[in-house]
Every structure is written in C-alpha cells, then in structure tokens.
C-alpha cells in the first residue's frame, strides 16, 4: 500500500514533527515539545490537530435516505435537526461495530466522519446497503482539522465570526476568505472545541493563522492520551466487530426510539444486551502504582481468575497517573472494584474507575 500524506504534511515537517504511519498515512505523532507538553497545552490553551486522514463522506438524499441509513446506523436520523451531529456506529449482524462515526444532517443529505483505517470498508458497506440509489462522495479535496481546548473558541471566533454561537454537537456553514468552511462544535479530547472541514488548497494558510493566534500543533501521541483521559473509544482497540455498543458502555449513543423500535443490523443481540444479558462491560481502570497497563494486559480478579483484558492504557498527564480502559466480566464492572493486572508476568493492584478520568463542561 502506498503511504499517503495529508495536505499539511510539509507544514508538519517544517515544524520538526516526528512521523508515524497510521492507517496508511504519514501522520505527526509529536512535535518538538513532546507528548506531555502538547497534552497539557491542549487542556490549558488550544491544541490544533490534523485529522485529514479521517473519511469525510457525503451522501445526498432526503426521506428515503434517512430510512435506508437507519438500517445500518442506530441513531434517530428521522428526528435529527439540520446541522445537528450525533455520535453513532455502523453495526454488523451480530451487534458488533464496523466503525464508530459522527453523522451530521445537512440540508441536502448527511455528512459522515469515518475512521481512516475503516473508511474504504465503510464506503463499501454503506454503498451496498443503499443499493446504489444514492450518490456517495468520499471527499479527497477536503482537509479536516480540530481546534481543541479552553481558548479554542476565542481563537476561532477571531477569524470566523459566529462560531462561538455553535452549541456542542452542532455545526454550520461559514466562510473564510470567500472559501466555504463547515465547522462543528465537537472533538475527541474532552475539551470544548471545533472540527473544521475545508479545502486542501487553503488548509495550510488557515492553520498558520490559527497558530499565529496562539493555537499549538498537537500530534497523534497527545491525541491518544487526551482521548483516554476523556474515556473515549479508539476503534480497533476499545471497540471492534465483536464488541456491541452496550458492552462498550455506549448505550447513550443509541437513541431511545431506536433502542425500542430496532430495525437496524444486530438489533437482536443489542436488545438482549439491553435487557440484561450482558457478559462484559468496558470500564475505566486505574492501577494503584505507576505501572502502565497497555492493550492486551490481562485482568484478574483478586482470587486470580482472568476476568478480562485492557484495550487502551497510558500515562494521563492531566490526572498525573497511569490510566487504562478494558473489558471486565459484568460482576466486576462496579467502580471501586479491586482487580489485578498482569504486566510482564507480575500482577499489580488496580481499581475499576468511573469514566471519564478527566471531565470538563462542554458548551451546550
């Protein structure tokens, strides 16, 4: 597979970024100040992320499209308002997750943000499910950047008037130097912030202005520590084709009407999960000491029976300690439950913890 680059690749390079291959893209993992500093700057100031590797899929259509999409996306697309966004999934036959996504209702259809590693497969799944009745466009001409942190709103409002009026998980069309820009108030860090979709042709110029106003470029390394502190899932790690949204503790993302009416792939399994047949649950986990528990670390009960495994783990710079997420048998999912983690052959004490580890208020 050919390595791909985003429109900002040269810009990242000019800043001294270290690169990593992620989902076939050369992406900045960190810049010169390092992951912890970048993480803290996002929490205290404003971080700027290039997430142009993610898929931006537009599907044109109205009522018929809504009906068809609801067969594979378990959120209430019928009642979603124009410019409103929802976090949801593409579910499969067994109630697992093909991908997690953000779907936004636009005047002429839906825009769906997909994970980079999944976007080609998602496109196929959606196209087949819609049986070629609708026009799909996976935008290659658009970049996607995220501006996150307490100072994001001030910096962006300075450049694009009106963005401060957006509510969390809502978007709108704006313009920048007569170019169309679509902005949503959303993100993946646990901070207030925006995701900005704009042409590849102007993205570098736009980003340079944000940086000149105080935004700090942030790499994928800090993006990962930020989202783990915020308790957010990374597809392919915390959720996958075998985990149901209910097991993943994401029931809130399935609208009430859809939970009751069903009519989407995997509903039988998900319904039985909701009605009490739940064998495991994704939980937050805090090791007692400094030990870092990464993906794959096995989780044991205090009498040393295996009860699950870790799906993400790192050092959380803002909570100043080791944090992790993983699946445990349902009986061990209550916050405060003492568990053991096996790291390099030794067992370490840990405690089931509420998610998120780090919480801030969003603008609603």
């Amino acid at each position, binding site marked *: 597979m050919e390595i791909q680059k985003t429109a900002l690749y040269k810009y990242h390079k000019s800043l001294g970024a270290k690169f990593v291959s992620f989902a076939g893209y050369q992406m900045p993992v*960190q810049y010169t100040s*390092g*992951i*912890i500093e970048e993480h803290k700057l996002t929490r205290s100031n404003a971080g700027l992320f290039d997430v142009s590797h993610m898929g931006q899929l537009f599907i044109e259509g109205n009522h018929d499209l809504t009906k068809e999409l609801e067969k594979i996306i378990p959120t209430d697309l019928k009642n979603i308002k124009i410019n409103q966004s929802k976090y949801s999934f593409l579910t499969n036959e067994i109630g697992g997750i093909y991908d997690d996504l953000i779907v936004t209702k636009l005047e002429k259809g839906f825009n769906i943000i997909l994970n980079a590693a999944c976007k080609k497969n998602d496109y196929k799944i959606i196209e087949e499910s819609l049986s070629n009745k609708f026009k799909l466009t996976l935008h290659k001409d658009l970049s996607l950047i995220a501006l996150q942190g307490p100072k994001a709103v001030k910096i962006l409002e300075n450049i694009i008037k009106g963005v401060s009026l957006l509510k969390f998980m809502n978007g709108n069309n704006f313009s920048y130097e007569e170019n169309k820009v679509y902005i949503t108030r959303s993100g993946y860090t646990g901070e207030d912030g925006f995701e900005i979709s704009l042409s590849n042709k102007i993205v570098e110029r736009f980003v340079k202005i944000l940086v000149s106003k105080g935004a700090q470029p942030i790499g994928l*390394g800090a993006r990962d520590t930020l989202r783990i502190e915020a308790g957010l899932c990374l597809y392919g790690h915390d959720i996958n084709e075998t985990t149901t949204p209910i097991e993943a503790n994401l029931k809130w993302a399935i609208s009430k009407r859809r939970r009751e009416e069903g009519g989407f792939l995997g509903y039988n399994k998900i319904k039985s999960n909701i009605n009490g047949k739940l064998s495991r649950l994704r939980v937050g986990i805090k090791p007692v000491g400094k030990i*870092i528990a*990464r993906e794959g670390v096995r989780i044991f009960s205090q009498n040393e029976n295996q009860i699950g495994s870790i799906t993400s783990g790192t*050092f959380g710079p803002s909570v100043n300690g080791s944090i992790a997420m993983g699946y445990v048998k349902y009986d061990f999912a209550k916050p405060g439950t003492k568990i053991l983690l096996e790291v*390099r052959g030794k067992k370490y004490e840990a405690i089931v913890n509420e998610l998120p580890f780090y919480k801030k208020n969003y603008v609603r």
Partner: protein
Amino acid sequence: MDDVKFSKEHEWIKLEGDIATIGITKHATEMLGDIVFVELPEKDSTVEKDGNAGVVESTKAASDIFTPVAGQIVECNQSIVDDPSKINTDPENQAWFFKLKIKDKTEMNTLMSKEEYDKFTKENAS
C-alpha cells in the same frame, strides 16, 4: 565524559574501580519521548552481559533496558522510579539507572567511546 563508554543499545557506562554506573543516553531519551515509568533490577541480583535489566515506558510504548556488562547490582536509583521525568531532563548525570559490581573488566573493551557512539547514532539516524 571521557571515561564513559557506550553501547549500541544506547546505554552509557562509567567505571570507577570495579563499580560501573549505567544509564541511558540523551539520544535514547530523545527517541523514546516523555518517560513516565521505569522498572529497575533488584538489588543483589546478577545480570548477564546484554541481558535484560529493566524497562522504561514512554507515553507511547515500553522498551527494555539492557546492561552492556555482566555483574551484581549494588544500587538502584530510586529517585528516577519516583520521578521518571528526570530521565528526560538529565539522563547522563543524575538520572543514572543502577550500579553494578563488574564481573569482567575486559567487557568494557567491547563498547564504544563517545566519539564512536556519536558517529554510530549519526549513521543510524533515519
């Protein structure tokens, strides 16, 4: 650091009498990124040349620490266990990892001088 030798695994080693102090190089910390956890060998344990002698973890990943010479561990640096970020700020002085009583001093001859090590890292830089 004239009397200090270096390994291809990016450890430095300073020999005084038959006690060797071992740590990781600045170059190693730059490759690893922010270090958030360190595990050191147990005091009095014996370690083999090029054998495993601990672990460092950055925000990104875990990496093994090797000892470039064999011997018996006589002291570990508890201050880097308590505050692993010291390894990033002062890797070649205060943030040493452990001291060992060297078994065979001729093993020092297999290691690189400062000049050779700098050349080695430059050649291996991608």
